[in-house]
């Protein structure tokens, strides 16, 4: 018996695969590490695609349908490349009673996309969250990783217009 499976060749020379491999090695290539490994893939590449899922499946010796099942079960994992900028609107209870539902609708109208989508030009991804733990500063919006406490509709709108305004014709 060999402790590790024969190593599966990396999909390409891209250095980020090394990071993915390192996570798998740290967990001894155990199937239970699947979610941790998918986190590393998403952190490194921004999303999960066919190539990465197949690579992870064969490295951890997990059926490919199962890997796909896990990846699509959890909402944190994305199967599409993210836009250049990301806007997360919290739709948790604390934020909802403080009007984040309206805020979301406003942004959807502004960007002509629905929550969970990216603008066709790849500028902006709009994401809905279920509480990010900033409920005391509701409504919370996260723009490119930075939490905007007590988000104001017009301030968010202004920011978004700077990214998508010109070519929305």
């Amino acid at each position, binding site marked *: 018996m060999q402790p590790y499976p024969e190593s599966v060749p990396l999909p390409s020379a891209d250095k980020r695969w090394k990071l993915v491999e390192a996570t798998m090695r740290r967990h001894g290539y155990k199937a239970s590490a699947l979610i941790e490994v998918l986190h590393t893939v998403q952190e490194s590449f921004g999303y999960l695609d*066919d190539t990465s*899922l*197949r690579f992870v499946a064969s490295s951890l010796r997990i*059926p*490919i*349908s*199962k890997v*796909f*099942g896990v990846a*699509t*079960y959890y909402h944190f994992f994305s199967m599409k490349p993210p836009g250049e900028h990301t806007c997360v609107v919290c739709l948790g209870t604390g934020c909802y009673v403080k009007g984040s539902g309206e805020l979301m609708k406003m942004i959807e109208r502004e960007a002509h996309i629905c929550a969970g989508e990216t603008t066709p030009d790849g500028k902006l991804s709009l994401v809905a969250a279920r509480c990010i733990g900033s409920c005391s500063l509701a409504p919370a919006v996260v723009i490119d990783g930075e939490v905007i406490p007590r988000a104001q509709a017009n301030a968010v709108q202004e920011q978004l217009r700077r990214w998508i305004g010109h070519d929305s014709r």
Partner: protein
Amino acid sequence: MPEISHYQVKTLTIDGKEVCASEHQTILEVARENNIDIPTLCYFNGLNGVGACRLCLVEVKGNNKLLPACVTQAQEGMEVTAHSPQLHEYRKLIIELLLTERSHVCAVCVSSGHCELQSLAQKLGVNHVTLPYLHEQCKADGSHRHFVADHNRCVLCTRCMRVCDEIEGAHTWDITGRGIRSRMITDMGEPWGDSETCTNCGKCVSVCPVGALVEKGKAVAEMTKPNFLPYLIQMRGKGQ
């Protein structure tokens, strides 16, 4: 009480009838042995139980939760109620919910007459649906050489997935998404015909309770599911 070999025999009652259970038997198994009919859908003799469809829920005295008979072990002194107006009401509602979820139009289904959903509905007396139809939109996949998968008829019992994994060892089937958006998939959700792992064994088709997985080219009347049970039990016996 007579001593029966070294087995630990348990006595319990189901719907007032006194019955015996051997070690590790489930309530459902004991009931069936004694000709007490408990409706089931996700259960398939020979596959691991998942307790998902909730049709087999029974009342057990002293427990304020309803328990799934298919995965609950029989215990000494249990007083089980498998049939009550309340349970009947719940079972009917479960079937009704299923009927509203996707498109179950029996008139155009090749499995009509051999469909467990259909016979459950008849048996439980679900003769009209009062809740609105949700009509979740699903694909029909005819890409496989021998079989067709029409997800509009799938009830997500996961029998196909379990038989493919536990018996065939291929694990071609799994579930993608979650909640009302759950769908059965082959491999990475590509057409079944393109699957690299499917061995064309047809076990999934044999265990599917409805018309979601069927053999190709069968006319409505011809589509009977091969009896798969003895084979499965035999296989499991070997595996353990």
